[in-house]
């Protein structure tokens, strides 16, 4: 049980870390890209734009 907890904690720390928004931005980019591809639209710009917007949001950090 101790090892399972440690394993889960490792992945929680790896994926969520100090700021859950890192993972959220990645997930949003994936979902939007899948949607654009399914609709037959060009999707290469989605990842840079979503990640870029996330980085710009750091400006609000005090």
């Amino acid at each position, binding site marked *: 049980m101790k090892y399972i907890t440690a394993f889960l904690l490792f992945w929680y720390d790896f994926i969520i870390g100090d700021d859950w928004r890192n993972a959220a931005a990645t997930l949003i980019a994936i979902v939007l890209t899948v949607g654009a591809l399914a609709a037959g639209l060009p999707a290469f710009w989605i990842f840079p734009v979503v*990640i*870029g917007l*996330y*980085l710009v949001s750091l400006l609000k950090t*005090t």
Partner: protein
Amino acid sequence: MSTSQIFLMTSTFLACAVEMVEALTIVLATGITRGWRSALFGVFAALAALAVIVVLLGPAMARVPIGTMQIVVGSLMLIFGLQWLRKAILRSAGRKALHDEDKIFLAEQHIARQNMSEAKQPMDWYAFTLTFKGVFLEGLEVAFIVVTFGAAQQRIDLAAYGALAALIIVLAAGVLIHKPLSRVPENSLKYVVGLLLTSFGTFWTAEGLGVEWPGTDLALVVLLGFYAILATLIVRQMRATPKAVAV
């Protein structure tokens, strides 16, 4: 060698160097304070445990389809890269304290000295455990970086060369200066690695999902330039804006 292969080796080298510097700091603090014998036993035991794990899990990675691998590895790499890039931006802008290897070294040394009563035993289990845990955990991250970076491009050999180069340079630096590697500007290293991982993660995840990048591999250079310029502008803007509370 293609652009993406050069990127692969560079990012593996830098990412592994950061993890190895952290492990070396723990080993040096323990070795200097408690003696080298038990500390080095801990290091070798951790390396043996790591070798077993890599041998057992490594071949399983090769059986996963490349598209799935790119999505899984790419998104993990992107998250990991964003974590480092975020911290590096905040540190460069003065919104977060710099990661100070000297302070970590002194803290580790202080903890080790507090447990000095056990050091006279034939085997200093405290020193052993400390270095074992440090090397094992950081080593696990190095192994993860090598296997995943390499597998996503089906060039584990190139990733391993990058890690090996990092090991040689970090070990040589450790032997030469015999103190924590505070001379390595860790935040700058994390800044660069964060940018590389974010660019790689973006490229592979999107490619794994079915995106066709304009210019194929050259898109990696464009992504790196885009993120680097954006991060620089954010740091400048943050420095120009007075902070409300120091973190």
